[in-house]
């Protein structure tokens, strides 16, 4: 297991998540999702700047996001040999495998248990498919194990 590459891949996912999330939540594109009733469930919406939130909230956001991103890269490394495909395809398959675990179950729970607009749940379900495929692809490109990298080169 290449620990250095795990950390690099995790940090890359972390940075990319902060770059692409604002696109999905920008007020000009999909910010309207947060205007669907009931709106009183939201503590933070894209209409609010991140700096308007308490320092503890921001520290929690950045630290947990980083830890989870590195864990996902670590998980990819653990499951590396069991995931079908090579390179970016392996990363995309990993993203697809992660999707039911990290998106479908939570969105299902939100829909069944909570007063969140059905359209908002549908939007988050689709938006996160794109996100998780991007993260999988990034990890697939960055994380390679020596013998597999050599095999890939031989195939080219």
């Amino acid at each position: 297991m290449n620990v250095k590459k795990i950390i690099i891949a995790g940090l890359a996912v972390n940075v990319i998540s902060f770059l692409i999330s604002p696109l999905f939540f920008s007020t000009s594109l999909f910010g309207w999702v947060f205007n669907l009733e009931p709106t009183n469930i939201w503590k933070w919406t894209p209409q609010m700047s991140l700096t308007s939130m308490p320092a503890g909230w921001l520290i929690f956001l950045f630290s947990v996001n980083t830890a989870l991103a590195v864990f996902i890269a670590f998980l990819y490394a653990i499951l590396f040999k069991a995931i079908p495909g090579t390179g970016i395809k392996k990363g995309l398959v990993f993203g697809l495998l992660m999707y039911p675990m990290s998106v479908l179950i939570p969105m299902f729970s939100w829909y069944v248990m909570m007063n969140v607009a059905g359209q908002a749940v549908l939007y988050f379900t689709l938006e996160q498919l794109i996100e998780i495929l991007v993260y999988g692809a990034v990890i697939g490109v960055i994380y390679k194990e020596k013998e597999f990298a050599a095999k890939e080169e031989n195939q080219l």
Partner: protein
Amino acid sequence: MKSINITKVLFAGIAIFFISFLVGGGSYFIFSGVFDLEPRAIWKWTPAQGFDMPAEWWIILLLLNIILAVVFAFIYALIEKGLPGKGIRKGLSFGIIVWIVGPIPALVTMYLMMNIATGALIYFTLQSLFEWLIYGAVISLIYKAENKL
């Protein structure tokens, strides 16, 4: 690509579908006080409502629950060889992995973005860990690599 025992995948999926109602549903009734923590407006369903929900809610609940349960058993079968440990430990590893990439990010998002009681989030964090360890253990007991069709 490794061969997958579809019969066992289906059997394991159906098993965790039923267990989810016993363990997940049962724990909501036992710890129903969590749903009384303010703000309560966030809940569509609470244990106080019992089974009094619209038919479409039940259809979605049962249908999606069984589909997801089978999907999870299938994912276990697909990545089984890459999971750490053997036997039931492999299943527990799977449960912990799903817990970290599933409920944890969702609960973190809920804490960051939603008006929800911290006590409720702590409860769901522990309850989901307990649930996923059981699901992982059950799947691993039912699905064993050496018993292929």
